[in-house]
């Protein structure tokens, strides 16, 4: 039987390691997670923002652009349909941010184990004796 102390220790071990945002503030990070999850459902579980924030902290991407975008999002929660409709001709800070966050999130999600397995159905990165190529016949 586990006693209470063991249980707490075990829970702490099993919990995902806490991540302290480095480029964004904690509040910005939480808002960014929410925003990116609306663009790419599943991104939060795949810790996509952790990856993006780490990059920002090391000069990959522009932190200020994220902060401006998140500030605009905090002011007005424009529906995603509306932002997506303006993606190719963005006029506002938030419309520009939609495109920026979307590109970064797609990259990060595709690089995550979750994105590869659950989204793309990829089972590669393994040792093969030979490469089978396409084994199906298509029209």
């Amino acid at each position, binding site marked *: 039987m586990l006693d209470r102390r063991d249980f707490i220790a075990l829970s702490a071990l099993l919990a995902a390691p806490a991540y302290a945002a480095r480029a964004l503030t904690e509040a910005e990070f939480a808002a960014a997670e929410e925003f990116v999850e*609306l663009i*790419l459902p599943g991104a939060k579980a795949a*810790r996509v923002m952790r990856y993006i924030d780490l*990059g920002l902290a090391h000069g990959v991407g522009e932190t200020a652009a994220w902060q401006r975008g998140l500030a605009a999002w905090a002011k007005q929660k424009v529906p995603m349909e509306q932002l997506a409709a303006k993606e190719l001709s963005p006029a506002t800070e938030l419309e520009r941010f939609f495109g920026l966050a979307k590109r970064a999130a*797609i990259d990060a999600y595709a*690089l995550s184990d979750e994105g590869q397995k659950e989204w793309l159905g990829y089972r590669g990165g393994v040792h093969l004796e030979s490469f089978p*190529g396409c084994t199906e016949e298509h029209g």
Partner: protein
Amino acid sequence: MAQAVLDVLVVGSGPGGGIAAYSLCQQGLQVGLIEAGKRLVPGRDYNGHGSPHKDWEKRLAAGFKTPVSKVTDYQEKDHFTGVGDNPRHGLLKALGGRSLCWAGHTLRFGPGDFAQWPIRYEEVAPYYARAERLMGVSGFRDGLWNLPDGEFLPGVPLRCSEKMLGKGVAKLRGKHREAAFVSIRKAIPTKSGAVPRATCHFCGHCMAGCEVDSKYTSANTPIPMALRTGRLSLFLQSTVTRIVMTNDGHRVQGVEIVKADGSREELRCRALVLACSTVETARLLLTQNLANSSGQVGRNLTSHFGLTVIGLFPQVRGRDASNDDGWDYYHSLLTGLYWKDKAKQFEGTYQVQCGAGVHPKKLAIKWAPGYGESLKAQLKDWNTTHAGMNMQGMLLISKNKYVDLDPVKRDANGIPLPRIHLHYDDSDLAMANDVIQTCEETIRLAGGTVHSSPGKATRDNLVIDSNHWVGTARMGTDRRTSVVDTECRSHDIPNLFLGDASVFPAYPEKNPTLTNIALSWRMAEKLAARARRGDL
């Protein structure tokens, strides 16, 4: 302290220099191989297999800006000046040079390609065969006259959308176009025991660097073989800054190197082989205006250039997309175009490298409209059903493309940076427009739709191949119009030889490295024969 005089000094340890060093040692000469970079250890210094999310933090802390641990991260930056239509220039300073990150595409030039050379295909063919055996080249025998078959290990089959492209090309032929669609050939062993390297396990990271050293590199094959002869001295992290000439200025006497600690040293030799790569070799010669009585050093510069067209094939929708890794993205080649057919608006020929499938570390299609589940489904569907077609065209040799020295900018050793001038000619644009039409037609003939295409080629949307530069010190029989003779020996300086692709006098659409290796091997044999005759 005065250094012993070595028989030959070879500068640069890439494919050209590596094979030269091995061949010279094998023939009994005492050789020094000088390399500006250090040794990179596969699996330690680069590791394409790692999970980007898990390794990212460690890598960022170490100063890398890309999540996947790639050998290309070590490429030089700010090492040249570009003038004109966005020239680019790849340089990896490491033992093995850019063979560490090459894709391994290994294609012979054909008899038609050598028509513009002062040597024939038959002269180079035995060296091709030897190089293929040493490198462990895998491919299918396709029986094409101008893409000759070699000594191949088993080839690698195509992915689903690439097979669809093959059907399109068959229909193109039905419309009397000269064309073939074949599997790519690579210097990567697919069968164990054929070469003393690991057999490929199809992880798809070749250009990030092969961490199990299956892919041929200069560092994993010829250089260790040269070391085993006991006749090779390796000078790592040593940059040649000056060629030292005899007092009369007629012959090379040695080179000056700058070592990692900044100290300078002079090394002596009886003969010198430069294999610094096309641009860097021209730069070194131009710095002292050596071997240049023809005024041709830096001229006749060419490379490949291209653009990308992507097709979607609804026929393959729903297929099992679980593992498309293979041996990197490009598995197939649209070739044979305009080898004989002269009805065209441009000079030269092109080939199209094709790839397909889901590659999460470098998604081919990274954008779709919308958001949410529909965005995810669209991106997955497009990547699963797509085939990418990447043009590799021969850039017209003209006065608009050349290398000279930057009059202002210098490197840390005080040597002027090379300046690359690239201005596309009208013929280049006409070729690119032909490629666009051919690719789009192939996709439609195969029952697919065009997902993306430049539509029309412009000087802004063409992309130069930064790693395929050749031709700044061309080979020829006339010393007034060429830099080296048919043995790759300088017309002006009898003990100076070139071991890289700077000597190519003309360039077909095919990838350069196999021919670079074959020519350098041939050069080394001719050099050693001269040494034996006392005729250096």
